[in-house]
């Protein structure tokens, strides 16, 4: 029995089968990792594209970005400020959670997407101050409903941009690649 399996394994068919098996396992792992990266479901299927098409600036809602570390999420009263004037608010299925949240005075439970781990101390302000616009990192939101990360926010991606922005300024490069700039 064992012998049979062995002789089958050393045959070309066996090698190929082994290879395929390895591939399946490997892609399974990759898929598992990928699962952790997909965009989560939000309480409200927020259409960024529509809001942008009305000419609303990013900073109108995410106003912390120009000032400090966190861009922040708008309070529902801010949403309500416009939406209470719109007829569609009452009728739209999409907006039901918002109406409910306002009625019950309960916060909307957003799930952050553009996140970095706890050990990365990201600060929006210097990035905005360095005249990066939102699209540079968050992509073109006028084409998206629910926000999705345009790329994996990993250290290599951060570092690439930091090196690029530092250019020939050695002192700036030192500051921008210092471990303590992001990790503490």
């Amino acid at each position: 029995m064992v012998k049979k399996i062995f002789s089958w394994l050393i045959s070309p068919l066996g090698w190929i089968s082994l290879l395929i098996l390895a591939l399946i396992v490997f892609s399974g792992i990759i898929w598992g990792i990928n699962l952790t990266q997909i965009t989560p479901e939000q309480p409200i299927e927020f259409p960024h594209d529509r809001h942008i098409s009305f000419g609303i600036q990013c900073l109108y809602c995410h106003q912390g970005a120009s000032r400090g570390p966190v861009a922040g999420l708008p309070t529902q009263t801010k949403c309500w400020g416009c939406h209470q004037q719109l007829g569609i608010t009452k009728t739209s299925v999409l907006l039901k959670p918002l109406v409910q949240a306002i009625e019950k005075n309960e916060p909307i439970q957003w799930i952050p997407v553009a996140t970095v781990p706890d050990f990365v101390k990201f600060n929006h302000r210097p990035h905005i101050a360095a005249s990066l616009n939102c699209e540079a990192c968050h992509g073109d939101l006028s084409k998206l409903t629910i926000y999705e990360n345009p790329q994996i926010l990993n250290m290599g991606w951060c570092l690439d941009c930091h090196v690029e922005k530092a250019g020939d300024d050695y002192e700036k490069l030192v500051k921008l690649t210092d471990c303590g700039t992001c990790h503490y």
Partner: protein
Amino acid sequence: MAENISLLALFSDLEPAADAIDKLRDLGVAEEQMNVISGVPLNEAMLGRKEQESNVPKLAFAGAITGFLVGSFLAFVTPYWYPVPIQVGRQAIIPGPPTIIVLFEMTMLFLLLATFLGVFLDSFFPYYRPLKYVPEISDGKIAIFFSCPENQKDTMINSMTILGAEKVEVAEAKQL
């Protein structure tokens, strides 16, 4: 030209085996058509055969050079991989003495890996298809494999038997 067959002569001692090789040579079997298989390492000189070539030392040397290069890469290149090389304890980015350790270890590792690999390459290991072999060899017998034209088969068998071969037969490739 007549078809060649492969014969196997099994000897239990070194002397007859050496004699048999001489005899075979006399009978016109070319040196490269003979092959001696034994359970203990025998010198070529013991059997009066010319020395075998081995690529193992050359490969080992090549491995050592590769290892040195790999070590150099690790020691001299990787510290500069990060945009601004990371400083630790005011030591130089490429510290002297530790570099020697890295170079040494990598050289040795690749030297030995290449040596090991060299045995595999030179001996065509691993090989799991049928081979001409008799298990008695590992009991200390010395086997001479040689090929001769089919019409000389009986001559060969006779002369081998005279020289003290325990067994002379047509060699068959078997699953080991």
